[in-house]
């Protein structure tokens, strides 16, 4: 098995998950991953070392270029809706759905930062490198995204529920 096939075998599942978080449906995610990997294959011989940064960069760039051209057909959620009433047994599900809807409602760039940082575990400088923008821009996008998602970075362990 050549190195490209080995890479696809090992990493395509993870790439599809990341792509799904970027695009919101599995079929488009698969298409995005295949396109990104095909582009990576074209340049494979000049990739030295870990191909991940290169492939993820292609993935995010391809996603951005697709979404510049396509209508997303969904209505962005401006803010996370208020939570269900305390005691409601559907509360947890509703809260997660609300957060997910808010993630889907982020701008493409904000969602990319969220996915790369919180799902892929990349540092902010690494996110900046992949997205081809400055660290300051990434911090700004992250801050705005967290505000819209009502996520408080300083609260890591406990919820601030009344």
């Amino acid at each position, binding site marked *: 098995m050549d190195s*490209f096939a080995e890479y696809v*075998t090992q990493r395509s599942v993870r790439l599809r998950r990341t792509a799904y978080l970027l695009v919101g449906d599995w079929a488009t995610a698969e298409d995005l991953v*295949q396109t990104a*990997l095909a*582009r990576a294959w074209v340049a494979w011989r*000049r990739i030295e070392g870990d191909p991940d940064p290169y492939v993820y960069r292609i993935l995010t760039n391809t996603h951005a270029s697709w979404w510049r051209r396509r209508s997303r057909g969904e209505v962005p959620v401006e803010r996370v809706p208020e939570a269900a009433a305390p005691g409601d047994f559907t509360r947890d599900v509703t809260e997660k759905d609300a957060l997910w809807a808010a*993630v889907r409602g982020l701008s493409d760039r904000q969602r990319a930062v969220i996915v790369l940082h919180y799902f892929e575990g990349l540092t902010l400088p690494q996110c900046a490198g992949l997205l081809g923008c400055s660290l300051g821009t990434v911090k700004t996008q992250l801050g705005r995204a967290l505000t819209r998602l009502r996520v*408080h970075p300083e*609260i890591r362990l406990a919820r601030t529920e009344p």
Partner: protein
Amino acid sequence: MTYTEDDLRGLLAERTAYMPGKASDVTRIVRRGRRMLMLRWGVGVALTGAAAATALWLLPGPLETRAPAPAAQPSATARGDGPEAPAGNLEVGRDDPPARLGPLTRIGGMASDRSAVGNDLKVRPASFATTVAFTCEGRASWVVSSVDGAGQVSRCADGQARHTFRKSELPRDWTKKEQSIRVWVFPDTPLVTEATLAGCALPEKDKGMCDGRYAAGELVRYDVALQLAGDLGTQPGAWMVGVYDEE
């Protein structure tokens, strides 16, 4: 309602836990990559044939001056005896470069009807005033001339570019023996940036790349130019180049 970062991480993991379908098919991906290459090259020939042709085209090696050139291959010319002719009267890529450039005489040259290609010009300089003059069909093409990895890169602005080497860039025995000048012509492409590596957010010095694009100034390096040529594949865009020197 306020969430924590752990809530967010948990949600992202949870939403991707179930994944329908099979793992990506490598064969399909490679097939798709090949289609991309063929589209990029803009030819309908089979990938293997095109790849082989490109590889042959890019092989380094001196041009046999005065040798007959096959169709669609660069034609090289040695010292010219013809009259000086303005480049504008020439059919770029088919005619020879002008025999004279001001007081300088042509000591070598070549023409090609394809861009994103390069070649070695073998010349016998008589002085350190050696000048390389490009004429390009693509008015924003990138042109490169280098000797032992040092040289100049510029746009073929309005279809013309002229590079004069600094004496410090040339080997000491420049006028003592036959020398090799590497020339490249690339089409105007977003793969190349005018930025220098020093100003990059993500410099890749070994690849000569700045934020994922080739830094123009690094194209004097053979390995960097070759990578760009490989990425682009041969493309339409006629050009010719003459090497001039004092008689």
